[in-house]
Every structure is written in structure tokens, then in C-alpha cells.
């Protein structure tokens, strides 16, 4: 097979054989021999070793290395090439930084901007129930509220069997803000995967909670899976709407609710205490805060658009005057139980 053909075949697997940039990503991230090997997957080691005339031990080592670079991912049938852009992107760019070719993030950014973000926006708009959900920043939760386990960052962290932190693949790609990279929280099966391929490091409860609190202080939005099932709380993302490949495509079309469920909270502002510094408005990733003219004041005051607010608490944490607070506005049933999938 000619050199180009190997890469084109791989690009076909991700559904974008005609993308020059994607081909460039593939040529930059693997040798033709590696590409040829990956094309054969999934396959048993015996079959592969025979076909490519390799030693089985060397083969396993090679596959482990490809796994750590994000070029193959685990599956029930063994290692295989990720078969769509979302998987490929995450596998590649959440890898240990030293394993990522320097041009890669920039090339991925081009893929994202040229066509991928539109695909994401379209796909997310088709969902019946959003698969992602905002949960409130820990320090923004009112003291008299009993959180449900699946909206409680502290509970999720403590309940997990394994914990790992890895880089946020989205922010590694876009870097459109100064937010930290190393704050994508993985639990249980996801943590095991990150640890086994060296993309994440295992952390004790206290350290992970500190990282969570720090990310919340930064104003990042805590995101988990949208289901009332502890078993599925196997990650907490800390997202910004400038870099997150889930939020950013929806930001442009002003339709976050297509892909995301709100938390059970709504931000409220005490306009008398508000000094009009605009910190909250700047921190809000959902464009839910406007500075409006109010009677009896020369200053414009923060005003929350209840429809747009997702109840993440970023504004609450940023307000030095303590003029903002979260209020509980939705019942537990807002978070779909497994029955929601069965009954609809």
C-alpha cells in the first residue's frame, strides 16, 4: 500500500477521508508502519504477529505504546483505532503531554473550526435527553440544602473507588483562555483507563477535592453525566464555554440546553449589595448575566436571565460583595433516573 493510502484508510474510519487536515494529523502522529498495524486492528495477537512478522511480546509493547499516545483505544475485542473524531481527539490530546507531537493541538483546532464544531452542534441538537449536566460549585451551594449524591462533587469524589486527574483534551486543543489544563476528573473505569495508559495520575481524595475547589474558584463549570445513577458518575469535567467542545459549539447558536441539563439551582442577585463591578457577568459561561440600569442608582447592576442561567455558581464565587447566591429551584426528579430512558 502506498504511504498516503494507509493514512487515507484510517481517515475513512473516522468518517472524514476527504479532510486534508485530518490526514496531516495522522501523518504527524504515526509512522506508516504504525498506521499499517493500526489498520489491522482489532485482531488477536497471534493473527497480527503472524501477518506482520512480529514477535508477540514486541507487539504487545507496541500496542501499549500506541495506547498511551491515544492512537488506539481499548474495546471488548482488543485495541482498535477510535472510530470517530470525538474519541480520536480525546484519546490523542488527553495523552501525557510529552507524547503529543507539538503541531497536533493546532491541527486539531483547524479540524474543529473548519467542520467538526458544526457536526457537534447538529448532533447535540438531536438528543431527547441531554447527556451532560451542570452541578453547582461546592462553595456556592446554600448551607441548608441537602444535595443529591449525583450532584454533589464531594460525594462523587469520595464515593469513587479509583480517582485520577488528566488533562482536558478540549482546552489542550483550543487554549482560548488561561484556565488550567490539568483538571479533568476521572473515576472508576475511566480512572483505570487513564492510569493504565499513563494519561492520568492517581490522586487521594483530599488532593482531588482541592483541585475541584480550585477549578470552581477559577469559575469553571462542573459537568457530569445527566443521569441519577451513582454508577455513571465516573467523571467531573471542569469546563469553560470558550474551549469546551461541548459548550462552545452551542454557545454560537445560543442553545446550551440542547446538550446540557441545568443544575437544580438558579443564581439570584441582591442588587442593593451589587456594586456593578461586572465580575459575575465576565465569569458567566452561559451569558446569563447582563448589567442593567436600575432606578435609584447611577451604576448598572447585575441582572440574571433565569432562562439562561445553568446554576453553576461561578458568579457566586466571584462576587466579593457576596451579592449573589444560588437558590434551589428544581426537584430531584429534574435529574432523570434510569426509568426516564425506559419510560419515554
Amino acid at each position, binding site marked *: 500500500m502506498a504511504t498516503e493510502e494507509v493514512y487515507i484508510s484510517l481517515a475513512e474510519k473516522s468518517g472524514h477521508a476527504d479532510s486534508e487536515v485530518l490526514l496531516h494529523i495522522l501523518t504527524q502522529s504515526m509512522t506508516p508502519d504504525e498506521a499499517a498495524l493500526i489498520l489491522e486492528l482489532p485482531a488477536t495477537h497471534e493473527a497480527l504477529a503472524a501477518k506482520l512478522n512480529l514477535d508477540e511480546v514486541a507487539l504487545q509493547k507496541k500496542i501499549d505504546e500506541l495506547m498511551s499516545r491515544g492512537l488506539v*483505544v*481499548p*474495546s*471488548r*475485542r482488543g485495541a*482498535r483505532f*477510535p*472510530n*470517530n473524531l*470525538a*474519541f480520536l481527539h*480525546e*484519546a490523542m490530546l488527553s495523552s501525557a503531554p510529552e507524547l503529543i507531537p507539538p503541531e497536533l493541538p493546532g491541527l486539531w483546532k483547524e479540524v474543529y473550526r473548519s467542520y467538526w464544531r458544526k457536526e457537534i452542534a447538529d*448532533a*447535540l441538537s*438531536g*438528543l*431527547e435527553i441531554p*447527556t*451532560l449536566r451542570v452541578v453547582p460549585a461546592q462553595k456556592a451551594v446554600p448551607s441548608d440544602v*441537602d444535595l*443529591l*449524591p*449525583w450532584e*454533589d462533587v*464531594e*460525594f462523587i469524589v*469520595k464515593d469513587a473507588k479509583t480517582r485520577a486527574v488528566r488533562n482536558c*483534551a*478540549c482546552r489542550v486543543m483550543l487554549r482560548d483562555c488561561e484556565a488550567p489544563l490539568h483538571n*479533568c476528573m476521572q473515576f472508576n*473505569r*475511566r480512572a483505570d*483507563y487513564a492510569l493504565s495508559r499513563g494519561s492520568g495520575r492517581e490522586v487521594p*481524595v483530599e488532593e482531588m477535592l482541592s483541585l475541584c475547589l480550585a477549578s470552581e474558584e477559577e469559575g469553571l463549570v462542573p459537568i457530569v*453525566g445527566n*443521569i*441519577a*445513577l*451513582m*454508577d*455513571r458518575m*465516573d*467523571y467531573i*469535567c471542569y469546563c469553560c464555554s470558550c474551549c*469546551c*467542545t*461541548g459548550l462552545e459549539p452551542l454557545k454560537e447558536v445560543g442553545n446550551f440546553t440542547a*446538550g446540557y441539563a441545568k443544575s437544580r439551582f438558579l443564581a439570584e442577585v441582591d442588587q442593593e449589595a451589587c456594586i456593578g463591578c461586572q465580575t459575575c457577568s465576565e465569569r458567566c459561561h452561559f451569558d446569563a448575566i447582563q448589567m442593567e440600569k436600575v432606578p435609584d442608582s447611577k451604576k448598572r447592576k447585575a441582572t440574571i436571565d433565569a432562562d439562561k442561567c445553568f446554576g453553576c455558581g461561578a458568579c457566586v464565587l466571584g462576587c466579593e460583595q457576596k451579592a449573589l447566591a444560588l437558590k434551589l429551584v428544581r426537584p*430531584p*426528579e429534574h435529574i432523570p*433516573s*434510569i*426509568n426516564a*430512558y*425506559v*419510560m*419515554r
Partner: protein
Amino acid sequence: MGLIHCPFGIPYYDCVGCIDCGMCLATTKEQMIEASKIVREHLRSQQKDGGVTTKIAVCGKGGVGKSTIVALLAEVLLGEGYSIMVMDTDESNSGLTRLCGFDGEPAPLMDLLRQVPQGQSGPDVEWLRKDRIAFEDIPAEYMVERGQFKFLMVGKIEDPFQGCACTMADITRDLVGRLDTKEKEIVVIDTEAGVESFGRGVERSVDTVLVIVEPSFQSIDLAGRIHYMARGMGISRVRTILNKVASAQSEQKMIDELGKKEIAVTGTIGLDNEISEAGFEGRALGGESRAKNDMKQMLKTLLQES
């Protein structure tokens, strides 16, 4: 973020746990609808299999009759040849021992449990450290027993996540989880009223939740919450029984209201003067009673696997 379309949150297509629904590969609405069908079928089939009943948490609003139900259930199970361990985690209600026909109370386990994280060792805490704890491992001072009926008092589970890393709730959950039941051995746990205890402790290591509902909207409402929480914490077998039901009309009304929440009722315990009197006088429910018969009727459904 990985597989954002996956209703099961599987990290990658074809990963362990993947059910091949195709949701992650779907690009059109039709494909997504097809995928949803597969998801639903899978979830429905999952719900059928709860495994053998070994550990039952009895839940419900305070005053709904949990203690009475626990005592009745224990009696009936004993009559069917089971060995029972009842665990009382409600410190404020010391009537359960008497309802169960015991004269005294055992020493509360909580003091002993508190010692474990502090690194105390010695024969009296050795049994607590075992991976699997058999009924026989538990020292006599923490139990009162009569034949195949053992009774433990755990003591009040305090607010979790306070103080040491290994919290009271964690320890109790851990203990219940490690209790080894042989065939025809069942643990029945009388838990504190309210759904807060769900996120925090014992219920996680049980395989069955028994929700008690009395004729009040509050009680019915709470039943909905308990189902939601139990499901969320991964307990697949949740059974609901009505208690203190005065008439067939009242029973039907409750069944209808619970039906609106998609909750099926397993059985009904009628309002029984004998029970009220026994409770009032603090004595066991001796011999036969209507309530005991009601419980016997529903036992099979209570315990069955699906």
C-alpha cells in the same frame, strides 16, 4: 469528555459495558431513535434481575410503622425457616427489641465501630476487620438472640463526612456490605426515616429496599423519593407495601396514587388493633394476627428475584 452520547457513559465504543446500541455512532435522528430502543430494551431486561434477597433495608417516614413491619417480617421469615439478623440503626426507637420479643437490649455497636479507624486492635475488634463477617463472628455482647433470631443495635448513624476520613456511615455501610449470608440467612435493617440516609450509608450495601407507605400524601410522596434514590444508588429491588390501611377504598386510592409515580404495590397490611395494642404496651406480637397473615401472603413477591 469522550463518549458524550453514551447513555451508559461508556468511555469508548465497544469498551467493556458497551451494549452496541449505536447511539454514539448515530448521526441522524432516525438512527438515534433506533439506538434509544436498544437502550430501553437493555434497561428493561436489567431491571428483572435482582439476585437473591439477602439484605433488606426497611425505609419510610417516621411513624409509618417500620418497626412493626420489621418485627412482623422477622416473625414470618422465621416461620418459613430463615435465620434472621435484625439491625436496628434508629437510636431513638428502643421499642424494636420489645416488639421482636426480646427482654433486653444489646450493647450498641457504634462505640466499637468508632474504635476501628483509630487503629485499635485486639480480639474484640478483630472480627470487624474480616473481609467477610459471618453471623457467628459477632460477639455475644452486641447481640440478643432467640433461636434463629439475632438482634443487633448499631446506634445512631451521625452526619457523614465529619471528622475522620473513615466516617461512621462508611463504617456501617462497610459492615453491612461485608456481612456474609449463607443460604436462607437474611439481614433486615430498620433505617432512620428520610431519604437523606440513602446517600449516606447503609442502603448502598443492601440488595433490597422495602418502602413502607401509610395513608398520607406525604408518605406517598416520600415513597417516590425513596424509589428514585434507591435506583440511583444502584439497588435494583425496591418493594413497596402499604401499612395501617383501614379500608379497601383507602387501599385502592393509595395504589392509584403510587401508580402515578410508576410504583407497584407488593402488598397491604391492614389496620390491625392487635398491632396497635402491642405497640402501645411494648410487647411482642404473639401468635397469629391478621397482619401476620397479610405479611405471609406477600412474602413470596417480596423476596422474588424479579
